[in-house]
């Protein structure tokens, strides 16, 4: 019985013509998805004359690291040392991800496993908040940030990220499948609620952490400050790289290089955490 499951789905009701049609369709769609990325990766290694070759070629002929060298040169000339942009993005991303995973797990645990007054309403509000984009609250958020004196600080980006609602939603759904018996056993052993949370629940939801990490990571890694950050020395890597990308023809090589570096980080993280993320998403469904 078990073995049959491991061997994967049994192929019943599959016609060869249908298979061919669907896989052909998938191949075309996959090409549409992949070609721009492959082109971008190749562009990073093309010498300038190949980038502007007519007619253009997808794959690089004489790969070179000149673009990366140009990029380093260009960075050396920037008014704010480039390492500062890197620090800003890394700081915002790191603090934002850690805080979000911790806060969303705490709240998710209470919402999933405690039956306190207000539980249902709070969760409904969270679900409702998934239904509109953050742009809706951009104007009042600016006023709130101004009142709190947070405009032009890292915290204007980090604090709202702590309370990202998709993360809490996924965490709560995932925590619901922790068996209650496990929690009761810990309770009988005399563990406090906080102890249960930290030493029983948290180790059991590692896939969900990883999912929250990647969601928040891509969100914060690509942030341009959301309009809250003005000082040049606080600006993010994404903002700085956009300036390079918009530098026009002369910067096309360096732009491709910086884009490759920026995109490779989230993609690498995803490759290593894919199976855990899929495991989390299995519980993402909305029940009535």
């Amino acid at each position, binding site marked *: 019985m078990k073995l049959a499951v491991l061997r994967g789905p049994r192929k019943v009701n599959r016609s060869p013509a249908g298979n061919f049609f669907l896989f052909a369709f*998938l191949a075309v769609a996959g090409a549409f*998805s992949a070609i*721009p990325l492959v082109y971008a990766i190749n562009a990073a290694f093309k010498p300038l004359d190949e980038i502007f070759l007519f007619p253009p070629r997808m794959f690089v002929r004489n790969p070179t690291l000149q673009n990366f060298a140009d990029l380093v040169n260009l960075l050396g000339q920037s008014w704010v040392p480039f390492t500062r942009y890197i620090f800003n993005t890394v700081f915002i991303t790191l603090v934002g991800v850690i805080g979000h995973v911790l806060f969303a797990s705490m709240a998710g645990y209470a919402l999933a496993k405690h039956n306190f007054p207000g539980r249902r309403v709070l969760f409904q509000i969270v679900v409702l908040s998934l239904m509109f*984009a953050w742009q809706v*609250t*951009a104007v009042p958020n600016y006023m709130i940030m101004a009142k709190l004196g947070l405009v032009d600080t890292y915290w204007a980006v980090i604090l709202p990220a702590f309370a990202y609602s998709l993360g809490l939603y996924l965490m709560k759904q995932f925590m619901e499948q922790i068996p209650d018996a496990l929690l*009761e056993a810990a309770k009988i052993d005399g563990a406090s609620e906080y102890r249960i949370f930290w030493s029983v629940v948290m180790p059991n939801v590692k896939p969900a952490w990883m999912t929250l990490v990647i969601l928040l990571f891509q969100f914060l890694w690509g942030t341009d400050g959301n309009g809250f950050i003005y000082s040049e020395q606080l600006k993010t890597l994404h903002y700085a790289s956009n300036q390079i990308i918009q530098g026009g023809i002369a910067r096309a090589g360096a732009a491709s290089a910086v884009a490759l570096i920026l995109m490779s980080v989230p993609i690498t993280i995803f490759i290593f955490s894919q199976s855990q993320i899929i495991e989390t*998403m299995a519980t993402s469904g909305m029940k009535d």
Partner: protein
Amino acid sequence: MEPIAQPEAVPRPAGGKPAKAPAWWSRLWRQIKVHRHSYVLLAPYMSLFFLFTVIPVAISLFISFTYFNLLEFPKFIGWQNYARLFLEDDIFLISVKNTIIFAAITGPVSYVACFLFAWIINEMSPKVRAFMTLVFYAPSISGNVFFIWLMIFSGDRYGILNAFLIEWGIILEPIQWLKTESYILPIIIIVQLWLSLGTGFLAFIAGLQTVDRTLYEAGAVDGIRNRWQELWYITLPSMRPQLMFGAVIQLTSSFAVADVSIYLAGFPSINYAGSTVVTHLIDFGTIRFEMGYASAIATLLFIMMVGTNLFVQKLLRKVGE
């Protein structure tokens, strides 16, 4: 599913509470005290969530009825902002039209694409499945790499698309893709679709893997003839929760198109051909500082997004019933 048993509410020692309070209130209060740990766990997240998400929606609704420029105290002006939006602001109407076109195309198309690709991929071996997942998901997480589309649709003959079309003899002169009104909207839709296989796509892949395999075999015995019947009678009903979640994610993002438009078509775009409700909101909120007016736009956007989402949720509850 069931919440774990909580300690029974302990009877309070005498004198702890004014006797006059109504019974339901004291019962509630006792409940709250018993569950104080839950509230402590919730506090950090919920205080930030209310501060930056819930309260702003209320503030936005309130300010939308005022004239407010951030310097003077808001002045109540009733429905004037809304009247101005619909009666005087032609660009707003263009933006609404564009946004509805975006949402009506990218919403359903990306939703169906997410499901379809996940469904086809699901039958492949785990290694191929992981690879194809990466191929489709990568664009949505690779950040500002959509500058590549700027190279593709660049208006000179070095633009990738122009170069190919000239090379193949289809056109003689390069086309100014991003500076021609009629091309702007379709191009933004294409790029938006390219970026749209994100969280919803992953949820579908995961959902398909959780469908009980024995159902398919039972279905085959019960006379299901082909994969399409199998899809409709077994797969879709089994993953209704994921379908509902995916719909929320895809719809919300399809209404919020702005970055791609600003990036590719410029801000403002040629004759506002790429203008959306969100770019209009950015215009008034961060450039003109007409906060009351911007809030009216935001409130309408909120109603559009949440209204459509609730409606679609209602429809999806009927899948397979």
